[in-house]
């Protein structure tokens, strides 16, 4: 059965998107990508640091990867738009993860500014994937503005706390006719599987992999979990109930009881 994720007309096999931040060494990144089977990876933009020359991280990425530059560092729509344009000029393609954060404690995204940025960037031909706080009305505005997917947070960035916003994400999955990609907060493969079982179209992880003792093994675990969760969703899980229902016949031959049916 073909089950591809369609984002802005692009068909993708892997439903695990991988962030590239926080890895101890760039050399881990290609191994992590390979182990996770991710086809979409995020990158960021920063001012050149004259003091410490850095390697070109793009050389560590497979040539067929889809780059999704983020607008991390933007505190309002105008800054996010500026970063998106620079990223495209830098050869990152036309995908962009809008990330507008002005709250420094919980790093919660600003849905209002994000909508404004989407409106402008979609008109300029970008495929826009907004990172957002899971709110139905905000997600509707983002969809109307032309977002290609909606990326609600599971928990604040980098916390590894899991699917704390589960109920709200479920509402988005049910009501928004776009891929819902859970971004931020997922700390364990079981939580990624949970998001996929709920009907999320994909998950984006970074910290959970980058901060594991063995990032490559964790990347593989996430890949498997996302695949398992997706298959579980597609298979249509059975309903839950309070009372037990035997999976094997309870009437038997050990006691002198009458069988239910001859």
């Amino acid at each position, binding site marked *: 059965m073909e089950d591809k994720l369609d984002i802005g007309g692009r068909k993708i096999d892997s439903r695990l998107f991988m962030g590239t931040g926080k890895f101890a060494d760039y050399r881990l990144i290609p191994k992590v990508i390979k182990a996770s089977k991710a086809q979409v990876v995020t990158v*960021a*933009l*920063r*001012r*050149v640091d004259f003091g410490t020359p850095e390697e*070109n991280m793009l050389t560590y990425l497979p040539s067929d990867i889809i780059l999704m530059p983020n607008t991390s560092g933007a505190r309002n729509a105008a800054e996010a738009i500026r970063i998106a344009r620079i990223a495209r000029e*830098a050869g990152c393609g036309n995908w962009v993860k809008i990330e507008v954060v002005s709250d420094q404690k919980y790093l919660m995204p600003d849905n209002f500014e994000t909508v404004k940025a989407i409106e402008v960037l979609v008109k300029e031909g970008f495929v826009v994937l907004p990172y957002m706080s899971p709110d139905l009305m905000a997600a509707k505005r983002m969809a109307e503005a032309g977002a290609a997917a909606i990326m609600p947070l599971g928990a604040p960035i980098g916390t590894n706390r899991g699917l704390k916003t589960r109920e709200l994400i479920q509402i988005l999955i049910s009501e928004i006719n776009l891929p819902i990609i859970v971004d931020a907060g997922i700390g364990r493969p079981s939580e990624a599987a949970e998001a996929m079982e709920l009907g999320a179209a994909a998950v984006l992880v970074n910290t959970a992999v980058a901060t594991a003792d063995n990032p490559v093994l964790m990347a593989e675990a996430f890949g498997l979990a996302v695949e398992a969760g997706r298959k579980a969703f597609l298979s249509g899980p059975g309903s839950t109930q309070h009372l037990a229902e035997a999976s094997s016949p309870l009437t038997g031959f050990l006691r002198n009881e009458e069988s239910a049916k001859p």
Partner: protein
Amino acid sequence: MQVKINGALAELPDNCSVKELVLARKLPADVVIIELNGEIINRGKWDSVKLNPQDSLELIRIISGG
């Protein structure tokens, strides 16, 4: 002449082009993106665009991120 590079004042020779700046600072030309007074300078124009006193430059590059 004095210009601003990434928010800090810097001294450059008069009539310096964007390309000359990139070479002088030994910047990784293949990955650096240059914004001059808020406008992105296309790589192909680095040679022809000359800097003026008080210009504000942003030199940006791609790094890892989530």
